[in-house]
């Protein structure tokens, strides 16, 4: 249960971090909160030669807002979001999701960017950011690029990040006052990763009506036009979404994901659990 040996650097800016990663030629790894990487190092599932600690990079801890969007640095912790320390651009969605990630001791160190980069299909930010159609901002030796979170996610624990690329921040379009959302997850124990996640967002002013079937075996399944699930919950349409997410074969899995969607819809419409 002890990590294999590695070197450690704590660069002061993004450019220096990218340089360190490039120099490590594939044997380097970013560490942010260490709340997913720490367990993997201790179990020796990951054995990098160099850890590049990005928590000291001011730009990656920053939060900026414009009338249209909120940009959240990758190193912003779950706890900071839970405590409402960010401007509320999502009508309470981000703090509500943050509060139910793991446990406070984990939330105090775990980061939004670390969670997204780790790309666990059952992770809360992975699915929430897909619901919000957020944009990931990456920086590597060739400069910056932006990708929708849905394009950033390639599969379970797989993303568009190159070995020497950093996730610098995530940009979320501001929801309108009329926006409503619902989020529901099934966990076997409080604070554990979800077995199934259902999420939906209706924002008529921005013509958004999306749903996510989350905690799949791969990337979040986004229903871009979810009127038949979100505006009015039509069971057949919800089941179709679960099946399209590749979760139709196992009756238990199918029912869990169906129920998660149903409860997310109920929450959005202000009823039930």
């Amino acid at each position, binding site marked *: 249960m002890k*990590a294999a040996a590695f070197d450690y650097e704590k660069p002061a800016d993004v450019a220096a971090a990218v340089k360190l990663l490039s120099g490590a030629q594939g044997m380097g790894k970013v560490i942010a909160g260490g709340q997913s990487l720490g367990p993997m190092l201790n179990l020796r599932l990951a054995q990098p030669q160099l850890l590049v600690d990005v928590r000291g990079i001011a730009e990656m801890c920053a939060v900026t807002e414009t009338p249209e969007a909120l940009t959240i640095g990758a190193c912003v912790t779950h706890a900071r979001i839970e405590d409402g320390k960010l401007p509320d651009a999502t009508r309470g969605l981000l703090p509500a999701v943050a509060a139910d990630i793991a446990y*406070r*001791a984990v939330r105090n160190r775990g980061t939004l960017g670390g969670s997204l980069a780790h790309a666990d299909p059952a992770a809360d930010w992975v699915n929430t950011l897909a619901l919000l159609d957020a944009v990931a901002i990456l920086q590597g030796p060739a400069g910056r690029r932006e990708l929708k979170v849905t394009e950033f996610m390639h599969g379970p624990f797989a993303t568009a990040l190159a070995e020497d690329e950093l996730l610098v921040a995530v940009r979320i379009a501001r929801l309108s006052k009329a926006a409503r959302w619902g989020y529901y997850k099934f966990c076997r124990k409080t604070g554990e990763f979800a077995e199934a996640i259902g999420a939906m967002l209706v924002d008529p002013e921005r013509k958004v009506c999306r749903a996510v079937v989350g905690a799949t075996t791969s990337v979040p399944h986004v229903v871009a036009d979810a009127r038949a699930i979100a505006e009015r919950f039509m069971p057949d349409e919800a089941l179709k979404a679960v099946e399209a997410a590749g979760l139709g074969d196992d009756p238990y899995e199918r029912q869990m994901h169906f129920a998660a969607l149903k409860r997310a819809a109920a929450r959005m419409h202000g009823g039930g659990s």
Partner: protein
Amino acid sequence: MSTRTITLQVNGKTVTAAVEPRLHLADFLRDRQLLTGTHIGCEHGVCGACTLEIDGAPARSCITYAATCDGASVRTIEDFDADPVMAELRAAFSAEHALQCGYCTPGMLATARDIVLRLPQADEARIRKELSGNLCRCTGYVGIVRAIKRVLAARKEKTHAA
């Protein structure tokens, strides 16, 4: 692989040490600082036995590496003798039989203290949610929950009276 020299506050004292980057904070405290009050259970963030305070907030010391704590202020259970909240919690843990073997207790107390200070209005359901990251193999949790409720109630009474 090279070592790193770190300087941090441990229980109010400045400590400078050369550490291998792979050394986690719990091992650093137990083996190098001889502060064995921090317990180690799972070493992957799940059980909560190693929970202590870093820069004023609870954290898992098994998945936090000592090298990442350069400049940080760490408080272990040994540093809470004179802490008023911890004194109330200790008395309540005894009164409510909130421990048997005591293995989970340092982590439980770190979490309990955070609940008392951060969530003074917490009801039983909230206490149980907040405690879900600390496993206890002995007590069945009832005594632990009662102990925290007792401290919260006593503190509420005190603020009402004042």
